[in-house]
Every structure is written in C-alpha cells, then in structure tokens.
C-alpha cells in the first residue's frame, strides 16, 4: 500500500526536488529570455512601442552585425568538428595498451583546469608580431606574420580553443569507447570485417550518445573562446575574430538594447535549430541500435 501511494505521489515529489532549480531557472534565465524577446519587438526598453520585426530587419542590414554573425558561425563550424575529430583520434590512441596512459590523460586535461587569464600572457608572447612564433619563422628565413591582426587570428583562436578543450572531449570519447562491448568486435572479426568497417559500423555507431554529448560541450566551449579573445585583444579585436559576443557587449555599452536583444534571438534561433536537428539524429541512431 505504501509503495502504491509513493508511486502516485511521484509527480508531486519530482516537482519538490525540481523546485529550487526551476524557480531560479525561471527567474534568472527563462524570464529574462522571454522579456528579452519582448524588448526585441519594441523600440525602447522603457515605455517602448511595438514595432514588430523592425529591429530584426534593421539588424540584418547592419554590416558589423552580419560580419560578427558570419565570424561566429564560421568559427563554430570549423572548431567544433575539428575538436571532435582530433579528440576521437587521441582517444583511439589512448584506448590501446600504451605505457603511461593515465599520465597522458592527466596532462591532456590540465589545460581545462588552468584559468584563462593565467596563460593569456603566454599566448600573447607566442603570437605577437614580435613573439616567439615569429622568431621561429624568422629563424627559418621567412617574413614574420602579424598573427593577431590578420586573418590568421582565426587560426590563433582555433589553436587556443583546441588546446583548452581537446582533453575534456578525449576523456568523454575514451569512456564511450570503453563502454562498447568487446564481443561486437569479435563477432565482426569472425564475419571478416575490415578495420575500417569495424570503425564505421561499430565504433562510430555505438559512440553516438557520447558524440552527441561532446558536440554539446564543444558548442558551449566554442562560445567561451570569447574570454581568451577579450583578454588578448580587448573590445575591438581584428575583424575576422570580432564575434557576436563582442558585438552584443559593445551594443550593451552603447545602450542599444534593441540591437542586442534582436541579435541575441537570432543567435538563439540558430542554436535551437542545430540542437533540435542533432536530437533527432541521435534519437534515430539510438533507435536503430536498439
């Protein structure tokens, strides 16, 4: 009788456990999100009149917004897949019997725990026009490159992003790999499957949930590169690394709330679309496995 009662109360109980989180979530995230949307539809945050999609239209004609949007999209499109491919590669290496595996694992994850501001000095000294990288290039007899003030700056960010994030993804992939039952591979080998077949038909398929998780973490962290960019080059970095976050920050400083909220929602729409798509793909593959 007691268990029966508990089961029917399950719903209520869930809300009790969820309560504190949900309250704060609504107050500090959901409500601001919804009011933000409202602000994007009026012409001023206080006593504004409704202007429909006018702010969005204006924003889509704004060149600095468009370039910030393109830069962010570009960066995310390059860094997220690259991070996933490289970290899967390293995870596959570490998944073999290799000496010092645990030590390698520890070293790979240290960048994640080191505060951004601590190593920014080193990055600056490395990538500056008069920096260490250029001294190497000079020693090889080539002219130096102004890494942070040319299109190369995107590469610099990519390197910093990968340095910081590969370790986390490696550990996630490693866990996923170790979770695939060895029998699957044995069965495939008996059926005469080649190594590449094993990789694509077993490893990749069964890694789907992990891959999805790594993908989400990689996206979050791709937005966090803003920290490094900001600490290295301030509010107005070189054009090609002027991200949506810079744009929104600067619009905030300029008190242009219409632009920043509309920009925020265009960005949000992109994120929702990507995640939704991935959710569907993940479900499909997971169902296929089962």
């Amino acid at each position, binding site marked *: 009788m007691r268990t029966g009662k508990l089961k029917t109360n399950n719903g209520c109980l869930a809300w009790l456990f969820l309560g504190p989180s949900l309250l704060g979530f609504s107050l500090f995230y959901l409500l601001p999100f919804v009011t933000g949307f409202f602000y994007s539809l009026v012409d001023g945050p206080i006593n504004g009149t409704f202007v429909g999609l006018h702010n969005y239209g204006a924003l889509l004609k704004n060149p600095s917004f468009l370039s910030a949007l393109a830069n962010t999209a570009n960066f995310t499109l390059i860094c997220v897949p690259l991070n996933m491919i490289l970290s899967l590669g390293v995870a596959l290496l570490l998944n073999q019997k290799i000496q010092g595996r645990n030590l390698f694992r520890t070293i790979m994850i240290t960048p994640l725990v080191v*505060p951004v501001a601590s190593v920014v000095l080193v990055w600056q000294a490395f990538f500056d026009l008069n920096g260490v990288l250029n001294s190497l290039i000079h020693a090889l007899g080539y002219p*130096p490159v102004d890494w942070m003030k040319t299109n190369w700056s995107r590469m610099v960010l990519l390197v910093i992003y990968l340095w910081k994030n590969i370790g986390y993804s490696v*550990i996630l992939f490693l866990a996923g790999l170790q979770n695939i039952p060895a029998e699957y591979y044995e069965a495939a080998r008996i059926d005469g499957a080649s190594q590449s077949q094993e990789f694509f038909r077993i490893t990749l398929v069964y890694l789907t949930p992990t891959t999805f998780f790594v993908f989400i973490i990689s996206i979050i962290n791709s937005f966090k590169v803003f920290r490094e960019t900001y600490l290295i080059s301030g509010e107005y970095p070189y054009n090609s690394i002027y991200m949506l976050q810079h744009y*929104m*920050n600067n619009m905030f400083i300029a008190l242009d709330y219409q632009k920043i909220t509309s920009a925020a929602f265009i960005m949000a729409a992109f994120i929702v679309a990507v*995640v939704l798509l991935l959710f569907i793909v993940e479900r499909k593959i997971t169902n296929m496995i089962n």
Partner: protein
Amino acid sequence: MLNRNHRIKNILHITILLVLAVLFIFPLAVTVTNSFMSEQEIANNYDPVTDKNLSSYNDDTTNHFARFQLIPDVVVLKQYYNVLIKKTQFLFMFWNSVLITFPIVIGQTIVATLAAYAFAKLKFRGRNFLFFLYIIVMLMPFQVTLVPNYLMAGQLGLLNSRWSIILPGIFSTFGVFLLKQSMEQIPDSYLEAARVDGASQLQIFLKIILPMARAGIAAMAILVFIDNWNMVEQPLIFLQDAAKQPLSLYLSRIIDGEKGLAFAASTLYMMPVLLNFLYAEKYLLEGIRLSGIKG
C-alpha cells in the same frame, strides 16, 4: 613480422602522444617557471612584445623577438613579494574571487543535485520538454540574456553587488545537465529494492543516490568552480566598481603593464584550481566519464 609492425606502430603512437603532451603542458610550465624570474630577466625575454616603442621588426637581428625561457638564470621570489606583500590589490581581488565563486559552487551543487535526481529518476509530465529547455538555455552565451538580466538586477537592487553574479550562477543549468547523465547510470533496481523495503523518497535520495553519484557530484563541483573562477563576462558588466572585481579582470589589466609580477600573479591564481584538480582528479575523470555515457 607482424609483431615488429605492431611495435613500430606502438612507438609512433607514443611519439604522437608525447609531442601532444609537451604542447599541452608547455604554457603552464612557462607561466610557473617564469614566476621565479627577476623583473630584469622578464624584461629581457618579453620586452619585444610589451614595449611597443622599443622595437619594430628588423631584418638583421633576432633580438627583437620575445623568447620563452623555461629555467630562470637566478631564482628570485621578488614577484611573489610584489604580488603578496607590496601591493595589496592582488589579495583583495583574490578574496573577491573567493567570495563570488564559493557561494556559486555550493549553491549550484545543492540545487543541481536535487533537480538532476528528479530528471534522472522521477517521472513527471513535461520532463523531456523541460530538460530540452535546460539544454537550450545552457548553450546560450551569456550575452543573449544580458539586457534583461541587467535590468532585472537593477530592479532587485543587485547592480554592482556580487549577488548579481552569484544568484544566476547558482541556478545555471550546466550542473543539472551533467549530473542527470551520471545519475541515470544508477540502476533502477536499487531504487526499486529500497522502495520495497519501505524507504521514503528522501531516504532513497540521501542513502542511495547521493553516495552513488558522489563522483559525478564532485566532478560537477570542480567544473563549476573552474568555470566561475575564470569568469570574465559577468563582472565586466555587473561590477563596475573595480574594488569588487575578481582576479580574472585584475590579471587582464596587469598583462599590459607590470610584467614583473604578472607571472607570479598568474601562478597564484591558478593554484587553487590546479591543487583542487590534482587532489580530486580521480573523481573528476570518473565524473566526466559517467556523464558522457548514456544507458
């Protein structure tokens, strides 16, 4: 023959990993070792980067480039003396970082553990949709809700107070997301058995879920700590008053000027995180591992 191939492959793999390991650890090594250098030595190594008047690129000489030197010519503690004793600002801002970070870590750990349990093990209407919302919001960069957050902080009278950062920090959905995944690993049969024995939900939560999710909770706490110890965006907007700002912003300011203490400041800044990590590495790895696997 096969064996030899295998060995060559093995050596190749280890070489790749070694190169990567050196690349990964190098920036840290430079920061730490350079913190024991004298101001003069730092200047010798980095002036081409910091002092813009001094140098423009010149073809004949390599002296115009900065260089990384791992071993100090003379080990001195002058930087540490400057940071810790001569200038009080560092300690003040270090304390600010502590005051912002600790309430967030403690608060988020409690709130997220409770919520993750509901998402992972209790059935209720709208669970999947709500969790989807949590993920979406988690993915949004800070700037997306910046304006409404700012206005709300103003309404609540929190502007220029560290609570304008702490409160949203506590309710960040990242912890819930991470913990839900690892709590799903706990077999339902355990909970079922406890229920049959007449345990209440609260007892189940305290006696089964908490001990079994320990690694996940520890990992979450460490990751939240790292993330918030690092924060740049929030204090930039919410804490105009420099006296209240955390260390991350202080460091970004001294980078341009006082190189002679920057490395010591950086080293001290990363110490809490690094020690924390080394101490709890087992949990962190285990927790991350569990969070990535789904049943």
